[in-house]
């Protein structure tokens, strides 16, 4: 049975893979396309080079892929006559080719802000090859630093802010665990950061690394509100609730102990006032700075916690005991 399944699978794969015999092999293509002067003229007058670097191609992850698999329209010889308005038009016309193999990631992009921009007719919005490259397509995450560089091609200002942040510094120093752009924003289904769903996801996003901070955030009013709003389908009607990034900053996030950090004690009141304009000097102490109440920190809160931890079981247990004694006596009386 298992054997039959394996045979059937192999047979299916063999059938669905493009048969090399039916296509022109890569060497034949490159015999023309290694000519640096080979080019076509777009209707806007731009010259589109048609030379393909054999070195780049063989170093890419697609080194074993046939040219015709991506350039399906040019698979026949001689190539059919085609006309393009601009260089960009060539790229956009070829974009549909990727999804024939990478359908799952293509589907993800449909939810992305990038694809929404493409759908709006924004011709500068990125398509597959803008991030991944064309003939020189590589594994996108080796090394990890390359991811942020890819995004930086368009998001220059944010990339600079990130590079100056605690995360950017750590990445530069070789820490492979720090978040790069795609860890927060995702790669293919990159969401718009102004979307409510994104806002409410922020604490979990930061919490996936800063787990202990996440717990103390959730036990506070801000965190509970964010958590409860995240799990409901109705839109929030109350005021915006502070998330990690509202106090710590976003791309330019600093170490909490850095003098320019918005959460260091000297700057904290100013940070609180972004949402609580009337706040005075005592107010920031209402936030326990991610500390669990203990004998050393927030002793008053700790005392209240301890008090109730003793009184509640004592009270409820005592009353319950009296009920049981009452019932027992009534039974004994019968």
């Amino acid at each position: 049975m298992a054997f039959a399944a394996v045979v059937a699978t192999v047979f299916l794969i063999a059938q669905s893979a493009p048969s090399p015999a039916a296509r022109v092999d890569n060497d034949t293509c490159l015999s023309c396309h290694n000519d640096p002067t080979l080019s076509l003229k777009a209707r806007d007058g731009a010259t589109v080079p048609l030379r393909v670097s054999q070195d780049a191609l063989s170093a890419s992850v697609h080194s074993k892929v046939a040219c015709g698999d991506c350039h399906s329209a040019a698979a026949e010889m001689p190539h059919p006559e085609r006309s393009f308005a601009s260089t960009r038009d060539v790229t956009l016309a070829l974009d549909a080719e990727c999804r024939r193999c990478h359908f799952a990631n293509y589907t993800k992009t449909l939810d992305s802000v990038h694809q929404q921009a493409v759908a709006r007719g924004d011709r500068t919005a990125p398509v597959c090859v803008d991030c991944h490259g064309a003939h020189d397509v590589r594994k996108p995450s080796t090394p990890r630093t390359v991811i942020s560089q890819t995004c930086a091609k368009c998001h220059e200002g944010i990339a600079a802010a990130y590079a100056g942040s605690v995360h950017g510094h750590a990445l530069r120093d070789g820490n492979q665990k720090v978040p790069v752009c795609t860890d927060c924003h995702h790669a293919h289904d990159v969401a718009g950061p102004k979307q409510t769903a994104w806002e409410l996801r922020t604490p979990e996003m930061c919490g996936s690394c800063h787990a202990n901070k996440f717990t103390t955030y959730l036990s506070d009013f801000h965190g509970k509100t964010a958590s409860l709003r995240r799990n409901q389908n109705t839109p929030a009607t109350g005021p915006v609730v502070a998330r990690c990034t509202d106090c710590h900053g976003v791309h330019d996030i600093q170490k909490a102990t850095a003098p320019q950090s918005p959460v260091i004690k000297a700057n904290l009141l100013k940070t609180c006032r972004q949402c609580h304009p009337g706040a005075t000097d005592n107010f920031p102490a209402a936030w326990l700075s991610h500390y669990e109440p203990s004998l050393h920190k927030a002793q008053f809160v700790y005392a209240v916690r301890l008090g109730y931890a003793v009184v509640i079981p004592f009270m409820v247990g005592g009353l319950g005991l009296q009920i049981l004694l009452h019932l027992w006596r009534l039974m004994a009386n019968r």
Partner: protein
Amino acid sequence: MIRKYVRFSPLQRFEHFAVMSLFVVLAVTGFPQKFYDHRWAQAMIGWLGGVDTARWFHRAAGIAFGLLLAAHVVRLVWQVATGTVSLSIVPTRQDFRDAVQTLRYYFGLTDKQARFDRFDYRQKFEYWGLLMGSAIVVGTGLVLLFPIVTARFLPGELIPAAYLAHSQEGLMAFLVVIVWHIYNAHLSPDVFPFDTSIFTGTVSEKRMQHEHPLELERLEHAAADTHEPAA
């Protein structure tokens, strides 16, 4: 005809009804916030129309509860000052002795049950417990409703402390009501299935004899005294 004894005035009956209704609203809108990470809490918040709506109802009910408490305390102070209220709800040394005797009776150390006046020690305990607990939840609730005003005069750490005390006091009140009050008003074989006196305002003579014999004796003496001159 069965003789009825008046136990609660219409105002007291209203107060109980209002506390009962507000308590339900406050518990339903409050506990899903306290236990926000449980599935049932998330479902309840969804059912209430979101955490912001739930909070609106919680605050509205809380303010109503606070006003009720304030009115009760002001009336009490006024009545005590003018001497127009009996102090039968004030705990005395006798209540302590009654509690000990009741426990001895439960354990079978004595066959004599404690005999109670207008309010027994359990009722006094519940009344004062409710009053004190209400003062705590209303006070801490106000701190949470006006954190900026609070921090203008008091240390900021009071706010998370109030947050914790508010939710823990609410939990304790809820557990006491579920365990103790529901037992005494519904499940106890003495009153099962339903002690209606707080709604009708009256109790039967039989229950007076059983539960408040000292008060009954006092009432009968007083009645006899007023009848004597006419006899």
